[in-house]
């Protein structure tokens, strides 16, 4: 009997039990949809995050310092503006921009809210493409020590929704001290770059930040390598300089970038082990992307595992329903055998039926999975990445499940004795 013939017979058998068939199909749909949606969402989110990290420029090297890790006042003093020029002197480094970040409370018309403060130099905007003052102007060298502020696009939109805030006063409390700032500009919308959202910050002159927070150390530097080829070399040079400047006063320093990841973990865990940590981290974009991809891969594995388990459950559902079907149709099997159906015809017949259920579930699951991924991309604001790979995976998987879980019932059907099958009530 031809395969097409079998397909027709199977379809009519499945149609005869619509509810039962739909429920078995549903089991596969859920599993496949879960796997497909997870893959598509992770792909979309990864593409988005890579774009953001890359948005900082592949030449960019981020240097974070952790003043708490330094045990002497002398080393804290070493982290000064002078370090900026020392780093800039490194042969592979083109530019170093110091920044100091902190938090403050803004007070406006009796309303207060928390702001993320960035103390920056006028060079800061040059680090990012498409980041410029949309209204007013950005900080200027002449603004040093002055109490002026430039608002990120998000801040301006949230708190100055009824008009251009340029020229207005904004009072901010920094380190317990209330200071009135004059708003001199509003930045263009730039969104997330790396781990930071440029739109959500208030930018003030670095020197002003230092005066108000009472310390001269910078929390981070953003360095640009001379070109993309020498990024790693530039990072090594920076580390050497930082080691020279910092290790003389810090006995238990670990060396270099290798410890950066563990350092981040330790700080987020509350800084308990800070004394044994490196007092700085140097991160290049490639590493940031790698670190991100590693955590994404772990997530994919876990979520994919959950999807795979639900597929397994769906497969068991198919086996169950096929066993019921074989029992119910024992007499039909007997008839088919008596008039010349070979055991192998019977086996193929039931196998085709199981594969039909699982393939149907696979295709529906693929559609629903993509729908979920699309919705996820709408909410998450990342691109909807549709690729052929999860589609093949879904089809392959459901085919495999149909065959795997359909085989035993099909073999059972094929092994029936024709006479006994005919007598079966």
């Amino acid at each position: 009997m031809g395969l097409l013939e079998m397909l027709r017979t199977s379809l009519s058998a499945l149609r005869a039990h619509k509810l039962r068939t739909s429920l078995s199909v549903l089991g596969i749909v859920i599993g496949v949809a879960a796997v497909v949606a997870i893959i598509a969402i992770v792909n979309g989110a990864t593409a988005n995050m890579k774009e953001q990290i890359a948005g900082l420029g592949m030449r960019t090297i981020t240097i974070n310092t952790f003043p708490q890790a330094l045990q002497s006042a002398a080393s804290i003093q070493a982290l000064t503006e002078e370090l900026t020029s020392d780093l800039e002197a490194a042969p592979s480094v083109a530019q170093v921009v110091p920044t100091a970040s902190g938090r403050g409370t803004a007070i406006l018309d009796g309303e207060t809210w928390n702001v993320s403060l960035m103390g920056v130099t006028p060079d800061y905007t040059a680090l990012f493409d498409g980041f410029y003052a949309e209204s007013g102007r950005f900080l200027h060298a002449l603004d040093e020590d002055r109490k002026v502020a430039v608002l990120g696009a998000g801040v301006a939109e949230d708190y100055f929704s009824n008009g251009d805030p340029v020229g207005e006063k904004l009072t901010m409390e920094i380190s317990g001290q209330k200071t009135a700032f004059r708003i001199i500009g509003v930045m263009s919308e730039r969104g997330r770059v790396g781990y930071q959202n440029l739109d959500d910050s208030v930018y003030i002159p670095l020197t002003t930040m230092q005066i108000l927070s009472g310390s001269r150390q910078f929390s981070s530097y953003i360095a640009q390598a001379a070109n993309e080829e020498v990024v790693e070399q530039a990072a090594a040079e920076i580390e050497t300089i930082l080691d020279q400047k910092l290790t003389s006063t810090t006995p238990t320093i670990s060396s270099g970038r290798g410890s950066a990841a563990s350092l981040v973990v330790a700080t987020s865990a509350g800084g308990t082990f800070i004394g044994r940590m490196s007092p700085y981290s140097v991160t290049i974009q490639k590493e940031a992307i790698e670190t991100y991809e590693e955590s994404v891969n772990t997530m994919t594995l876990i979520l994919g595992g959950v999807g795979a388990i639900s597929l397994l459950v769906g497969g068991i559902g198919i086996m169950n329903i096929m066993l019921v079907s074989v029992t119910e149709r024992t007499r039909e099997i007997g008839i088919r055998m008596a008039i010349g159906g070979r055991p192998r015809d019977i086996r193929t017949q039931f196998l085709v039926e199981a594969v039909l259920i699982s393939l149907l579930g696979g295709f529906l699951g693929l559609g629903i999975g993509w729908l979920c991924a699309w919705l996820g991309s709408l909410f998450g604001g990342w691109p909807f990445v549709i690729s052929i790979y999860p589609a093949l995976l879904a089809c392959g998987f459901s085919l495999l499940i149909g065959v795997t879980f359909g085989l035993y019932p099909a073999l059972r059907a094929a092994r029936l004795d024709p006479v006994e099958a005919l007598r079966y009530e």
Partner: protein
Amino acid sequence: MIGMIELQRVTKDYPMGEVVYRALRGVDLRIDEHELVAITGASGSGKSTLMHVIGALHRPTSGRALFDGEDLGRLSREELAEIRNKKIGFIFQQFFLLPRATALQNVELPMAYAGIRPQERRERAQTCLERVGLGEFGHHCPTQLSGGQSQRVAIARALANSPRLILGDEPTGNLDSHTSEEIVDLFTSLHREGRTVIIVSHEPEIARRAEREIVLRDGWVEEDRRGTS
């Protein structure tokens, strides 16, 4: 010359829980081409089992069962199925039509297993239905047919692959006497057309119209008599 069917000391055992039930106790039998044979006997005499062995549904426990000189006991299940498909047409007491398929589809089924193309299949199925007088009923489902009509569809199905042997297992057991007569007429006309026909039945009418009657008792051939008709 060897007969179409030759049984030599055939026994058949069935396990019945702990004990083994011996349905056939050494049957020797030869049926030649073009014979019309009735197998009779009380229930439990082994006549159904004998038919299953002749019909390649069961392999004998011991002894030899030859069909066209081929030892059925040595064939695989796949090969037995092919013999049933091409050389034997079965007709059962309970008709055994597929309830969800139309009369035409039921008749087509043995041809589908034989690998005949759909177009040719449809035409031949129609011819078979016309042969049994149901040319107009091709698209009826078994539930829409009377018992006599169902049995005619079953006969048409048995004829599908033009088998040389027609096997009836109590073919009139579920029919009223008038319809039974029509079915028996159909069987005898199939015999006249040159087919070998074996009917298992306990109805004396069928035995009377057969040219040979084999009477079974307790798994033995008790009597093998040839009639005059």
